[in-house]
């Protein structure tokens, strides 16, 4: 048994522990590119879970926020000719702006209707990107989002080197984790919990439930937009599929797989999913059957998800 005092200590310093993990993580992976992918999708899933796990709202259109961030970063660099870090800032703002737009329509609805409205609006963005070929490259994707070296005062980072690339991405993910952790621990985080727990009571207490949801959606958009920008830099291209419905579904699966009720669960889910995908596809092209079976088994037998089940075994 673990010392409960130690567990409490770990919880308190979860961001530091997470950062320590991020430092050694690529050394544990079969190849570095997976580690970068896991970080990016892990961040995407965390941003998504801010709405899903923390507030109980199932969005089926988060690809619009992720893809919107990816395109925003690429367009800022290619069409405006601005440096990559402006692209990153642009992606966060774009993610929040798209979330604010979709949210303005979707936030009045709940449950399956919320999922459908977010899905429909995300599809609108997908077809818009598909049609605006001059701007986005249409089906071919937005090519040439190249970042080779990063100039810092005193030294230069070679972004092409896989391990350096990993640590640059990890830096942004760590900052995002820290911000997300602060938000969840803040008074606003307390309001999010209250709204998830009991909407009518939260309203009677004096909280504008619709506004709380809307703000959470916008914040979620910022994290997902950042994840999209990191992917654009990682791949040097923004494929049109970044905005596709499959991406929205993927992030739902990752959150459920890892455990939507926990802070790191979505991250763990993204890691397990991508590892399974990569390892099984070495062996057979029908990897989706196996990953799908693993997902179904997890939902049936571990409804709290992988991370949620581990925490439950330890914490209590």
């Amino acid at each position, binding site marked *: 048994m673990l010392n409960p005092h130690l567990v409490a200590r770990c919880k308190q310093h979860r961001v530091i522990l997470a950062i320590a993990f991020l430092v050694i993580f690529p050394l544990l992976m079969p190849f570095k590119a997976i580690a970068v992918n896991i970080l990016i999708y892990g961040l995407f899933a965390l941003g998504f879970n801010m709405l899903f796990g923390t507030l109980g709202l199932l969005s089926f259109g988060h690809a619009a926020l992720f893809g919107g961030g990816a395109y925003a970063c690429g367009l800022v660099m290619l069409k405006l000719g601005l440096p990559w870090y402006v692209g990153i800032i642009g992606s966060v703002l774009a993610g929040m702006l798209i979330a604010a737009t979709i949210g303005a329509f979707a936030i009045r609805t709940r449950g399956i209707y919320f999922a459908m409205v977010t899905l429909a609006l995300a599809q609108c963005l997908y077809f818009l990107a598909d049609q605006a070929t001059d701007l986005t490259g249409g089906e071919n994707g937005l090519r040439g989002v190249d970042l080779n070296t990063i100039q810092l005062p005193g030294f230069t980072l070679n972004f092409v080197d896989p391990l350096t690339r990993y640590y640059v991405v990890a830096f942004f993910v760590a900052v995002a984790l820290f911000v997300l952790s602060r938000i969840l621990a803040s*008074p606003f985080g307390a309001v999010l919990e209250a709204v998830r727990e009991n909407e009518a009571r939260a309203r009677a207490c004096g909280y504008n439930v619709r506004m709380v949801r809307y703000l959470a959606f916008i914040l979620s958009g910022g994290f997902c937009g950042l994840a999209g920008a990191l992917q654009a830099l990682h791949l040097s291209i923004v494929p049109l599929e970044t905005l596709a419905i499959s991406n929205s579904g993927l992030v739902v699966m990752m959150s459920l797989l890892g455990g939507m009720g926990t802070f790191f669960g979505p991250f763990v889910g993204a890691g397990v999913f991508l590892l399974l995908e990569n390892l099984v596809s070495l062996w057979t092209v029908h990897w989706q059957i196996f990953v799908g079976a693993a997902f179904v088994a997890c939902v049936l037998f571990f409804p709290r998800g992988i991370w949620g089940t581990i925490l439950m075994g330890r914490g209590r």
Partner: protein
Amino acid sequence: MSDVILSAQSVGRTFGAFRALYGISVDFQRGKLTSIIGPNGAGKSTFFNLLSGAFPPSEGRIVFEGRDITGTPQHKFAALGIAKSFQITNVFPQLPVHENVRVALQALASRYQIWKPRSSLPELADKADALLETVGLTDRRLRAAGTMAHGEQRALEIAMALAANPRLLLLDEPTAGMSPEETKAMMDLILKLASERTVVLVEHKMKLVMGISDRLLVLHHGELLAEGTPDEIRHNDTVKRVYLGQREH
């Protein structure tokens, strides 16, 4: 200041073709404990929900301290000075008891602060402890609210309603589903609260409120049947016929 804190003016409500409430006009006196009673289906809960802003009336106006509050959204009631408890137990079940009250208090202090930690509002934690003391839940403060006994959850709800320090406290059947001991404790608590603020109480069991109320309203089939002191109501023939008569079988 006027003696009337809350006034319902020809308030009615229909649900589709069903008329739940016919134009009711009542003035609620400041500092008094008023109970709304009536048999099942009399429209008590509808009337309560109109007064507490759960939904707007189909006709008529509701005036609080001289201000027309008809149609004001629910989440603005706490800031106006009106708090309510629900008929069905309504807490944040997975949150600790103390956090339930703290988050209720926070509604009037900080809603959208996303950067500072919750502990940056220490005065809320202290106030929450004081409120838990008032309703007698101090030794439960770290329990998950949903795991407490029914009566304790109702008491917690009262503490949360008190968080906004309301001038008007609306309680919907606060003793519903309680054991006799719990009912007794709740009635004592309500009496204590009524000494400091205006309380409006909806209750199905007439006997319970006879002893503690300053005024009674009797609803029947969506209409105001009678209004008066407990003594007047007790000797009102119409009330006896429709209400007390029912209790004999």
